[in-house]
């Protein structure tokens, strides 16, 4: 790797890491003021525990050439054999993806999941669900040929495409979010009572950080600072813009007003949908993909009311649905020919074309098949992990914790303590709801297994 490519990859890894506090603000702002810290902690915890799991075993399972289609081996345990070198940049880059994927799930379990259960769920899910799916889509054998279940072709000899993790990350996390939402059940009062975002400026800030970081996510997935990365960058940019505008128009027509939450949701929907396609489409395709995702996701976030699952912060509606939209549209818009210029990306020529660019329906079917496989696998294994945890320690907090708020009851903290009426003494904790209650229900007992 030359220094220029290395510079871009170092930067991309940092950018994706920065997405995690961005996501914490995006979700935290969208949720309740009395459980924002719980949401924040669920997110940043992922970037604590997952990197440790990743360097020990996750990376090896996901990326080592094991000779089979399903899973890597443990040859790279504790990064065995990877000394100080630029190779580490790619390990670190992928580590940020591993960390953000379970964090995405957290939005669906807002306000009601035991923190202890989450703390155990995350590393297990990372090893049992994330690493295998990544292997299927991105594994290469020792000669550098595609080796995974899904990149070698399920239905024929062409493999499905997923540039930066539409299927591996967004659909995968979205399905897991659905499973946990089903297992946890609805929040008290939902859907009759409004639970509006407690801080939309934080949501906007989180969205801004996500967009900024997503350039690292997508253009960094080119693994260098070349024309390939440039196109991925441009597609990411246009899809987010188009997603925002499309969502704004849809909500203006249906609901009568333009909202900040709508603009932010549209941006994220566009970003999710372009993720699998960023390095495989050219020209104005990014606009189409973003705009279509913006409209479809706008409608998808209302599904939960019809179907009755409490996907609190719309992980399913935006990440799962947006990921599916992007993955399927890639079957239409994939245009490797545009990249064929050897200065851009030599190997592009070997990728399949989409329906609109002369490739027929083969890629489209591969895309759909891959998506279905990942959805089924993620659903089943996440369900198994969830049921096991439920049986072992329970997934859901007490009703009183939910009413009083998770921040106070689980974490002994309150997010905001702006008011200090009593100048000298202890009303500082005054922002909290029923702090004193803990005298009735000692923390030491209640905190167990949270």
């Amino acid at each position, binding site marked *: 790797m030359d220094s220029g490519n290395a510079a871009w990859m170092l930067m991309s890894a940092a950018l994706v890491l920065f997405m995690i506090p961005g996501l914490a603000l995006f979700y935290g702002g969208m949720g309740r003021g009395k459980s924002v810290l719980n949401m924040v902690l669920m997110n940043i915890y992922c970037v604590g525990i997952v990197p440790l799991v990743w360097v020990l075993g996750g990376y090896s399972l996901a990326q080592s050439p094991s000779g089979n289609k399903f899973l890597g081996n443990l040859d790279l345990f504790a990064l065995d054999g990877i000394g100080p070198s630029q190779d580490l940049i790619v390990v670190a880059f992928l580590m940020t993806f591993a960390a953000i994927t379970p964090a995405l799930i957290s939005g669906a379990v807002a306000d009601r999941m035991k923190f202890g259960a989450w703390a155990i769920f995350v590393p297990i899910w990372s090893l049992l669900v994330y690493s295998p799916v990544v292997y299927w889509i991105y594994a290469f054998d020792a000669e550098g040929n595609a080796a995974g279940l899904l990149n070698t072709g399920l239905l024929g000899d062409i493999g499905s495409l997923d540039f930066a993790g539409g299927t591996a990350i967004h659909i995968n996390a979205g399905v897991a979010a659905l499973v946990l939402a089903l297992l946890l059940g609805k929040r008290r009062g939902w859907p009759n009572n409004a639970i*509006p975002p407690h801080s939309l400026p934080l949501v906007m800030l989180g969205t801004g950080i996500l967009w900024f970081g997503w350039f690292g996510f997508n253009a960094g997935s080119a693994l260098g600072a070349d024309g390939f990365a440039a196109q991925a960058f441009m597609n990411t940019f246009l899809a987010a813009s188009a997603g925002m505008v499309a969502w704004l128009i849809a909500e203006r027509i*249906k*609901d009568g007003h333009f909202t900040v939450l709508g603009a932010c949701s549209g941006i994220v929907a566009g970003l999710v949908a372009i993720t699998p396609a960023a390095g495989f489409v050219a020209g104005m395709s990014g606009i189409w993909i973003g705009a279509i995702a913006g409209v479809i996701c706008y409608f998808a976030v209302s599904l939960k009311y019809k179907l009755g699952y409490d996907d609190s912060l719309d992980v399913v509606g935006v990440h799962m649905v947006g990921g599916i939209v992007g993955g399927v549209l890639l079957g239409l818009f994939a245009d490797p020919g545009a990249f064929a210029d050897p200065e851009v990306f030599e190997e592009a020529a070997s990728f399949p074309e989409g329906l609109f660019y002369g490739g027929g329906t083969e890629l489209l079917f591969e895309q759909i098949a891959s998506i279905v496989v990942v959805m089924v696998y993620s659903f089943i294994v996440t369900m198994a992990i969830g049921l096991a945890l439920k049986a072992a320690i329970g997934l859901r907090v007490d009703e009183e914790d939910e009413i009083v708020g998770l921040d106070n009851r689980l974490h002994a903290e309150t997010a905001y303590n702006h008011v200090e009426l009593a100048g000298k003494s202890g009303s500082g904790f005054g922002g909290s709801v029923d702090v004193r209650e803990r005298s009735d229900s000692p923390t030491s007992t209640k905190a167990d297994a949270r």
Partner: protein
Amino acid sequence: MKLVTAIIKPFKVDDVKEALKSIGVQGMTLSEVQGFGRQGGHVEVYRGAEYNVDFVPKARLEVVVDDGQLDRVLDVMTVAARTDKIGDGKIWVTEVDRLIRIRTGEMGADAV
């Protein structure tokens, strides 16, 4: 002396304050409250879902006045706070037994 408590629309605070000042009221105390009333039962649409909204933001003004001033104060407040739309609010009056100005220790009418 009487304590006049008025629950009014937040954006009317300034009109009421100016009206009271104009008739010589020299002090009042304001707080943020949430009101539930006939206005209640409204339905909001947000992000594709419908919600009932029960409590709406209101402002609460407290003014201690001399018995003699009471009627003028009530008249002026009622007029200044009115928008003729539902949710304009209430005013209630209670009897004040004693009043003290902390700085000077003055009591009763002198302390207003």
